[in-house]
């Protein structure tokens, strides 16, 4: 295997040292998986830097778990190749890839104690007794479960079980850590705590990590870069800040919390600024993608980016329909005079029936060509 430059990779090489300098550089080239005629993953390209935390994000059925299983080796490829530290690994069975994997339902061995679960990977690798004991102890300490070592999974809470599963994956010192929706089965409070713990472990150990989730908050808070997927294809790859502030498509915008998606007609385009019209109202926004006058489009804005005033004069006048208490802020569903609804977040105070004026900064109203919203 020579250090050939990556071909067809979606990502620029970035500040990467010479190959093999630091382990954990992963490269996916056109990986494709078809099941009985259905394409679950279509020509997926990605270059992951050593130590990077990458998240595959998307709704169920978008191919994110298939992509992860292809990397783990649990699912074979229909086409494409996977390289780790410049060695081709897509023909290597999962048990010889040396990756750690954490599953949504924990997948702890129910007949073994927490200690035995963590030690499992070391035992099958025939690590010496003393070494195995030392490493198992260290891994359990890493997830703060030393005092629960002798319990069976059935005696542990969901959060503790998932921490055992994380320790079990880390103890083998994997070249790559794969996590398949590890927090999805936990309640909200535990999910937040364990999320911070995963982030801390990543900062401390610097393992190249691939994380799969359908939760955008999780993806944004954990990742160095995230890959938004849809129908087996990549919609956008970028840092959390990029994807959050500038979604590449209306689908990504929808997923990133741009809750107000309004079908509009393009009136005129002037550079980046575009004017659009919908049910009697005219808005100014920022074009994302090629727009032309007269064409249908989708305008997207996040509830937090709408400015909502009780006493105000503006083109966008409406009446508050529903108010939801959100702690420091209020969220309101507002019906404009023309009938269009907007969901806005405001410091308040606000009550149902109030007449308000809305202001949408043109920089925060993103306008997408309609093709990107309706592509199958």
């Amino acid at each position, binding site marked *: 295997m020579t250090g050939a430059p990556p071909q067809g990779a979606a990502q620029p090489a970035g500040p990467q040292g010479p190959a093999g300098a630091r382990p954990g550089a992963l490269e996916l080239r056109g990986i494709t998986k078809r099941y009985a005629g259905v394409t679950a993953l279509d020509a997926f390209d990605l270059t992951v830097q050593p130590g990077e935390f990458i998240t595959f994000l998307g709704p169920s059925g978008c191919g994110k778990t298939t992509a992860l299983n292809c990397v783990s*080796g*649990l699912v074979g490829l229909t086409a494409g190749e996977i390289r780790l530290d410049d060695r081709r690994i897509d023909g290597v069975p999962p048990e*010889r*890839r040396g990756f750690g*994997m954490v599953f949504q339902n924990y*997948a702890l061995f129910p007949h073994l104690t927490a200690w035995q679960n963590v030690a499992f990977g070391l035992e099958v690798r025939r690590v010496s007794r003393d070494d195995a004991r030392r490493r198992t102890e260290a891994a359990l300490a890493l997830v703060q479960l030393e005092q629960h070592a002798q319990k069976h999974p059935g005696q542990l809470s969901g959060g503790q079980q998932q921490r055992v599963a994380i320790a*079990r994956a880390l103890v083998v010192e994997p070249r790559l850590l794969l996590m398949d929706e590890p927090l999805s089965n936990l309640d909200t409070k535990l999910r937040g705590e364990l999320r911070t713990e995963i982030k801390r472990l990543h900062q401390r150990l610097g393992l190249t990590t691939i994380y799969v989730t359908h939760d955008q908050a999780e993806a944004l808070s954990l990742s160095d870069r995230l890959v938004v997927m849809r129908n087996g294809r990549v919609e956008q790859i970028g840092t959390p800040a990029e994807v959050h502030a500038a979604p590449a498509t209306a689908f990504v915008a929808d997923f990133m919390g741009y809750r107000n998606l309004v079908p509009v007609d393009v009136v005129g385009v002037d550079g980046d600024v575009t004017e659009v019209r919908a049910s009697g109202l005219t808005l100014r926004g920022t074009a994302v993608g090629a727009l032309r006058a007269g064409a249908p489009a989708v305008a997207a804005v996040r509830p937090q980016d709408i400015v909502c005033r009780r006493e105000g004069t503006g083109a966008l006048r409406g009446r508050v329909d529903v108010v939801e208490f959100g702690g420091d802020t209020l969220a309101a569903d507002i019906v404009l005079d023309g009938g269009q609804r907007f969901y806005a977040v405001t410091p308040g105070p606000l009550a149902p029936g109030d007449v308000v004026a809305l202001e949408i900064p043109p920089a925060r109203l993103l306008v997408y060509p309609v093709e990107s919203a309706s592509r199958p």
Partner: protein
Amino acid sequence: MSGRRVLMLSLPATLFLLAAFVYPFLYGVFLSVTPRTGGPLGNYQAFFGDEFQRASIGNTFALALPAAILCVALAVPLAYAMRHGLRGGRVLTALLVVPVTLGPVFIADAMLFYFGPVGWFNRALEALHLAAAPIRVLHTYGAVLLAIMLTAFPFAFLLMLGYVSGIDPALERAAHTLGAGRWQTFRRVLLPLMAPGIATSFALTFVLAFGVFPSAVLLGEPGGSTRVLSIAAFQAAYEKFDFSAGSAIALVMGALQLAVIGLVFALRARLYAGPARGGKG
């Protein structure tokens, strides 16, 4: 529910158990300790004192133990293969389960024709020039063992299939990603989780095999290697018309079965017996 209602609800079952099991059992015990001649333990002394009679214990174990072990040993890998989607698995399951619907006499009768001197088995061997003269399959220990296995295997297999399909597939995937190959995954994860099922399966097939009677008479050597306890009890009761001696032999048979089952379940209690799932969900 009030205690009174619970009592009323359990009444039919209690009555049935008393009439169909407890009374006949106690009557049998009474019969066995009131022999025609000698003291209360006369029948037992006679049975254990006679080498020919005593041999029936060994004969029964020689059939029941290998039958139960072989059934379980075949059922475990087959159930495991089914889990991983064996081609034509449903047809195979149906075929393997059919003998459940056939009585042991029916199976014995079919085997008598099939393996007989002019049956399909020997005619096929001759046609293929694999044997010069008919091979003697019938009236041997092997024929009885085969008949028992045909009857008992479906039970062992269905039971194991239930146990195996209850094991969360994520556990195998987790084991693979941790570096365990197929064999290590089987030995370290699946087998321990199947162990309670293996014990139950073994106990069930052992009891079925231990009580063998029709095939031991029809297909075996009822005067020799397949003279099992049930034949000894039958001969005492219905050939010598000594019901007392027959009851005693039947009770010996019951005690031995109970001892084996007790041992198996004592071992089973030491195994993990919780759910075979890796967590929530």
